[in-house]
């Protein structure tokens, strides 16, 4: 099966009966994860303003449909190599909200024991391997996991993410080319959110679509509207199926907007006037909410329940993380080498 190469950046609002293979409980679950991701991001920003976050704060506001919809296409045994706008993917893959906040606050009981921050953790039990700051460097490594899976004839796939900026480093090419040549079970999602820090995409690449690069590797590529969670899910499902059946890698460009600055210290004053407002009309959570309301799936009662559940989870995680201790300083030089 080959994925469509049509540009789909202006997909119509999903209407009843056009949700593909997603069941109604699935759609409510997607809504829950997208809301949870945004609420976590908002809470992290609040903690940042209170001076409680160590280092920077990077949100995925505007990217929830891409992060959640893509990871929703994975099985438990599949591998996730997300980037820093993909909190929703971490959550879908099973990461606890507590662990997310422990990472943000650099606590000793975090998954990296305070040795690294934000989403830079790994949780091997969930097959999550977080990003390094040199995002493109993750691609060849994620391809290496896919190589190991193929060598061992395992049924799993690797899903890796990169930004419109990160897609320009050499390792993007080297990793994707190797994956294509070796027909590895690998899916690369480019989250084109219009800006690499302050630099707009017109100064990042001259291609019409980033998915056009796929043909240079002899693999399918597709550009989709990254604010439609069902479209993201369906597109990723096809790519995952293809990879799982030995069909090799797929490149997916998911077009979104980075609704916040690069980090909490960035006022994003370089974003042209009106651009945020224009994209806010396509807010991925609002889009899904409208559909769910029209389908009578999201009753007042159901929505209230979801909101209460999210608030309880986030409040618990914030309290747990703020109440946890930093790692002891004497650990700094320990554990550099594996025994």
């Amino acid at each position, binding site marked *: 099966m080959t994925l469509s190469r049509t540009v789909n950046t202006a997909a119509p609002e999903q209407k009843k009966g056009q949700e593909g293979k997603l069941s109604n409980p699935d759609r409510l679950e997607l809504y829950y994860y997208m809301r949870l991701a945004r609420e976590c991001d908002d809470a992290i920003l609040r903690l940042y303003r209170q001076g409680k976050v160590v280092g920077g704060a990077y949100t995925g506001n505007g990217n929830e449909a891409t992060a959640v919809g893509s990871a929703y296409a994975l099985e438990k045994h599949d591998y996730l190599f997300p980037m820093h706008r993909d909190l929703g993917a971490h959550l879908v893959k099973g990461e606890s909200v507590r662990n997310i906040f422990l990472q943000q606050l650099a606590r000793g009981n975090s998954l990296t024991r305070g040795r*690294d921050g934000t989403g830079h953790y790994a949780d091997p039990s969930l097959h999550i391997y977080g990003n390094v700051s*040199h995002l493109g*460097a993750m691609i060849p490594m994620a391809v*290496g996991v896919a190589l190991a899976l193929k060598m061992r004839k395992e049924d799993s796939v690797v899903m890796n993410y990169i930004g419109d900026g990160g897609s320009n480093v050499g*390792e993007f090419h080297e*990793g994707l080319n190797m994956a294509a040549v070796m027909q590895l079970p690998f899916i690369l999602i480019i989250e084109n959110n219009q800006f690499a820090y302050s630099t707009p995409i017109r100064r990042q690449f001259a291609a019409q679509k980033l998915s056009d690069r796929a043909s240079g590797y002899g693999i399918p590529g597709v550009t989709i509207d990254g604010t439609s969670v069902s479209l993201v899910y369906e597109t990723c499902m096809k790519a995952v199926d293809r990879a799982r059946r030995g069909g090799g890698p797929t490149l997916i460009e998911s077009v979104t907007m980075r609704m916040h600055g690069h980090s909490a210290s960035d006022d994003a004053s370089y974003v042209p006037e009106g651009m945020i407002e224009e994209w806010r009309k396509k807010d991925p959570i609002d889009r899904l909410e409208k559909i769910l309301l029209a389908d009578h799936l999201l009753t007042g009662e159901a929505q209230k329940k979801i909101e209460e559940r999210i608030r309880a989870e986030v409040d618990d995680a914030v309290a747990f993380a703020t109440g946890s201790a930093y790692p002891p300083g004497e650990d700094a030089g320990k554990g*550099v080498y*594996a025994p």
Partner: protein
Amino acid sequence: MPVLTYIDAISRGMWEEMERDPAVFLIGEDIGAYGGAFKATKGFQEHFGPERVIDSVLSEAAIIGAATGAALAGMRPIAEMQFADFVTCAFNQLVTNASKIYYRWGIPVPMVVRLPSGGYIHGGPYHSASTEAWFAHVPGLKVVAPSTPSDAKGLIKAAVRDNNPVMFFEFKYLYRRVKGEVTDGDITVPIGKGDVKREGGDVTIITYGSTVHFSLEASEIISKEDGIETKVVDLRTLLPLDRDLIIDAVRATGRALVVHEDTLTGGVGGEVAALIAEHAFQYLDAPVKRVGALDAPVPFAPTLEAAHLPDTARIVQALRDLIRY
């Protein structure tokens, strides 16, 4: 015991490790059907199959990245850089990913990177470099550099079994020039342990790799002509250094000469000299002396290359200067 060349000892070690552990595999450019640029993997693909002896795309960052990812997923890759010079293309993968994973994530990354290193072969600036000092500065990597067939086999086997990324520097100059007895079967050389290659009480030479052999030659000359006896310490591992061996040897002889093929500024020899200054200063009868390559790229013409790289005569001269101080 069979007598093997240096390169055959490396091949033998890899072969045995692949027989022992199905998680061990090879990845690199031209290593399969062709057997590698230096034939270190000749016959491997025939025996172990193309899945375990992978002819990769010409793509150093992808090779090292793929090895790192495979190690993360429980495999034990041996990645070959065709020449140690080309590891520059994969620097980010080693420094950003492989070296920091265990510290950050607590997940072992058992991988070996083989690096055919050094000059004396008229390879010019891009096929002769000594690149070990860059990696000896990276916590989380281990760096080994054997000088004899026996150590080469023992260290490649130890490197494969180590749960960390190990940079295995092998010296092209020694590949077929150096032969030696190598124990059949399962021998390993502990990573982090140096070795005394010659006993003597007057001067300690601290060296590794190709210059171990020049140092031994120089030691014989100065023994015969000057009656001076050197102790030759072969570091074998550059990260972590065998500090005790270095310090004890220098304390015993009171004089120290540090020799390596690499350029002097920022080289491993500087770290060795600093260790001696910190821990054996009061035992010294003369300042620490160093012999290394000129601070320049390795040049192509035989006359230039000979002037660039250290040799036996320069080591003899340095030893005489040290004794006369």
